[in-house]
């Protein structure tokens, strides 16, 4: 697994936290956690855009964040399970894997710096 892609996945992982936080946080500690998640998620997202095409990075960030949030809402917050959700998550993952495969990991600007 390429380091740049790990950054995209970490950004999406924290995106799930803050999206849930914005919806469910109701104590100071939870709001602090939400704000920290936003900062981590955007920092890592921006760093991932250094070598990978930003359009690709952002689509994967948004996509995985959405899939993760829908899954977390079902598992943790009693949102109803629907077959359509599962199928869409599956389709989304096909898109992410496809993007990973067709992306040349070092073709972006800044590739010279490291």
């Amino acid at each position, binding site marked *: 697994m390429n380091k740049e892609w790990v950054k995209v996945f970490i950004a999406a992982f924290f995106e799930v936290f803050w999206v849930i936080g914005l919806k469910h946080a109701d104590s100071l500690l939870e709001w602090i956690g939400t704000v920290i998640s936003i900062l981590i998620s*955007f920092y890592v*997202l*921006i760093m991932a*855009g*250094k070598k990978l*095409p*930003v*359009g*690709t*990075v*952002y*689509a*994967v960030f*948004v*996509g995985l964040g*959405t*899939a993760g949030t*829908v899954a977390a*809402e079902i598992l943790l917050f009693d*949102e109803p399970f*629907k077959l*359509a*959700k599962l199928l*869409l*998550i599956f*389709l*989304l993952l*096909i*898109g*992410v894997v*496809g*993007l990973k495969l*067709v*992306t*040349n990991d070092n*073709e*972006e*600007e*800044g590739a010279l710096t490291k």
Partner: protein
Amino acid sequence: MSWIFLLLAGLLEMSGVVMINRYHQHRNWQSLLLLAAGFGGSFLFLALAMKTLPMGTAYAIWTGIGASGGAILGILLYREPKDWKRLVFISIVLVSAIGLKLVG
């Protein structure tokens, strides 16, 4: 009015995505400020739009404008790859994400 807020939210998200590229070319506080203003303003207008529009619909349209617009501007302004496979997979990811927001 809420539709105009939503459109603005989407456009600001697009500009936030463009600013990520700009930041890597001009690493200064102006770039960072524009980036933060893009995403910050985007969230603000999204929240305003959601006061009257259904949440799923607003999220779906916002994602659609911001992420696809960001990808298109990346190709036009920063010469990101435009081979058909990349475009197809980006479309699959975004269509699924929009679908999830509408279903959820």
